[in-house]
């Protein structure tokens, strides 16, 4: 927790970055020691990506860099020069949500919603490479994201439902998912 005065002294030297953010070219100027998480939240005003633990354990800061899920709290802003970054804000629009965003919302897979952006992007990466994941594959992919509210079950169900939608299948929410067993 002990930091020296070096950080405040270098305020005059900013880094200047160009990269593709949510399918658009952006340019941003920021203090060079910042993590990608901080640059997104503080310099680009995209607060959808969350912090939770400061050390890469909770997964709330997950974004996609060149289509791979990364912990943005452990990536320097400088590291995404000329690369492609996707945050929760770019996953869908209010007019057209990503199927995962729809199923998360409809099934109650987002309770407090704070971990949801991280889960959604991690799940998106999975479905981008495998539209028919098993329950075990889903669990393993999402094992780097912690949720304290849901117990994960509705999250698995939402991922499976979104995958079915994306495969073009007619989907129906199983009764016991929302009413319990008889």
């Amino acid at each position: 927790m002990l930091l020296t005065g070096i950080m405040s002294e270098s305020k005059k030297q900013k880094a200047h970055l160009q990269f593709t953010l949510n399918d658009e070219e952006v340019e941003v100027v920021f203090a060079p020691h910042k993590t990608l998480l901080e640059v997104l939240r503080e310099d680009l005003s995209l607060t959808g990506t969350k912090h939770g633990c400061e050390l890469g354990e909770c997964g709330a800061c997950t974004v996609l860099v060149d289509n791979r899920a990364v912990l943005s709290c452990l990536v320097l802003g400088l590291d995404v020069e000329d690369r492609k970054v996707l945050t929760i804000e770019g996953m869908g629009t209010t007019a057209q949500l990503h199927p995962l965003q729809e199923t998360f919302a409809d099934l109650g897979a987002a309770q407090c919603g704070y971990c949801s952006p991280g889960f959604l992007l991690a799940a998106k990466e999975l479905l981008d490479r495998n539209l028919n994941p098993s329950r075990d594959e889903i669990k393993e992919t999402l094992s780097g994201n912690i949720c304290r509210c849901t117990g994960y079950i509705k999250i698995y169900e939402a991922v499976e439902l979104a995958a079915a939608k994306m495969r073009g299948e007619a989907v129906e929410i199983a009764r016991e998912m929302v009413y319990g067993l008889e």
Partner: protein
Amino acid sequence: MKNSNNGKDGKPLKVVGKPYRKVDARAKCIGQTLFADDITLPRMLFAKLLRSHVPHALIKNIDVSKALALPGVIAIITGKELPIPYGILPVSQDEHALCIDKVRFIGDPVAAIAAVDEDTAFDAMDLIEVEYEPLKSISTIEEAIKTDEPRIHTYGDGGNTHKKVSLEFGDMEAGFAEADHIREDVFFYEGNTHLPIEQHSALAHFDADNKLTLWSSTQTPHYVHRALAKVLGLPAAHIRVIATPNGGGFGGKSDPFNHEVAVAKLSIITGRPVKITLTREEVFYCHRGRHPVLMWAKTGVKKDGAITAMHFRTFLDGGAYGSYGVASTFYTGALQTVTYDVPRYKFEGTRVFTNKPPCGPKRGHGTPQPRFALEVQLDKIADDLGLDPAEMRKQHLAPANSVTANYLRLGSMGLGACIDKIVAAADWKNKYKKLPYGKGIGIACSSYICGAGLPIYWNNMPHSGVQLRLDRQGGVCIFCGSTDIGQGSDSILAYIVAEVLGIEPFDIRVVTADTDLTPVDLGSYSSRVTLMTGNASVQAAERARELLAKAVSEKLDLPVEDLAFADRRVFDVKNPENGISFAEAVVLAESKFGTIGTVGSYTPPRSPGKFKGAGVGPSPAYSYSAAIAEVDVDPETGITTVDRIWIGHDIGQSINPALVMGQVEGGVYMGLGEVLMEEMVYRGNRNVVHKFPSMLEYKSPTTMEMCDVKTYLIEDPDPNGPFGAKEVGQGPLLPVMPAVVNAIYDAVGVRVDEVPASPDKVLAAIRAKAKGQEGHFGPKGVPDVDWGEPLKVLTPAEGGDGKEMPRIAVHAKE
């Protein structure tokens, strides 16, 4: 099991009982929801708290001059700028936002810095010089009981005892004399914490009219409002507290906090907005989590398992401040009687101060620990008597619509149906005591309140208020002070009002948790919100419907009783074509009555208990849960894997079954975390440093540890709940820990009388058993405490009136 698809007028429910999407679900899934740290204001400053690195010390001097000289530091305050103490409970106003003469735990704040950015504030922390004079530190319950000086606080029940309680209901001697079998057991439940993924965050803005607004991730904006008014010297009418959507709370965001007061003061001093967000490490120090509790229980039973008497003692490690601790102490002794019939009951409890982060309310608030003890002891009793533990419990349930020995009034009681469901589903009878070594199955039951019967501060006002505004173009706005912490309380309001008015939930705007705009709701704690705000919104909506019905009945020339409200219309029940739109109905009503606005409120019924201490425990209703855990214990490592949990929850009536399922699954998850791995432990007697103040080291279950859950919802409507609804936010957590530990016994024949039942403890017990010793891991005993004369109350069965029995004066003996 669904048996109430109809409202009380017999008409089918259209919204209540259906799995609608939450009103805020989509915003959360697109990253649009603004949590406290997402908010920025122009010229905002960033604050950090400097915290003590010693566990117990006098503050001799604080020199902030070097820090103030750092470019970018705008203001620094210390304790003398905030001399008025505060605290959540009126009886323990023992906190200062910044310590004045002493620090009481590592993490206790001593200074607050406001700077142009967080990095500068961090740098300034290093430049503040604090001179401490260390005092002897106290780190355990035993030590606190033995050590009268130095006192961590100068109030309480003597020495380092914060509170001592001694209550006796009924003739205990007679009760134990009647027993065929008596067991005494000792248990220990370690402390753990809420670990919400969102760290606490607050933003204060002292505006040009010298009025203060505080946005904060809090579960209790009304209580924060009261604390700020007390401490800041501003009139309460000039303070506005807005609870931002909580990224998880679980009771960890229910106190008024140091950081909230500090940013408010810094904003007043600087005239600029000031924001603070705690680091995860700071959240561990903020804590207010599960009290570590040492417990002794003596229970007498007949040979069929009926309880004749129960004597329960609890010892709570409160940490450095009071928080909700006095209530927590009572809660460790209140709900033992609401699940099974306990005709005679004695409770002694004490809470001590130690130099550790303060404990407070975590999901279940003081009841998971004694529930664990009770359910494990019952398992041992069943084993002693040769009875099936599920059957034994089922035979002796507390009756519905009865009053317990300690004067808690029970309403609906669906626990029997819960037990039946899961016993059948888990194939209990073919598995209990029949699975191969290493595999086991265990059962436990529990109960929880649906809202505390009394408010935190004494008053005669409603616990929940709802205001409705009806727009002449058909929209409806609900105002309520309740706080959505992820459980969906905002949506519950919309579902209920939509049901009563016959419109769609998404036609409704919900405005909540703003002390300027919304009527008081006491907050999201004690599982009160669905029941209390639900009842208040039913009242407000019915009053609105009455106004509309009167206006429409005149227009359509129909009696009011013939009008139905559904599908955004108001129409003749006998001739549905004959009707008008909801919006037109509002126009008619507004034309007739003027601007349409209604109010609803809710106050819980008074409890029959009239003795000192009767305030904790009563509730308008109690929920019930039963859980069976199937586990796999590796005898080489002691590692327990929970394969599956079957859980039955007596919900009364689901307002939204999908949200109910989410709470059940989330409760099971949190129970797994507590029983398998979560612990707040401290290093070294003198240093009392937290061992695991990070998410890397404090273990919580990931997807790989979460078990399969089979959920059964029992709907037996309670007359005191809105549409019969009871709680689900806390109940389902409670049976999980004892069910797992009972399953461990079934699997490998050892008793771990502690939570967490971590691998080292299971292994130690297995090895002891292999050596011919008792296959047991747990505390050896409890400290000796002078409990004094108990407060005695005759039970209802003995003809009691709920009041304390008069104490016989000594001289009357002659």
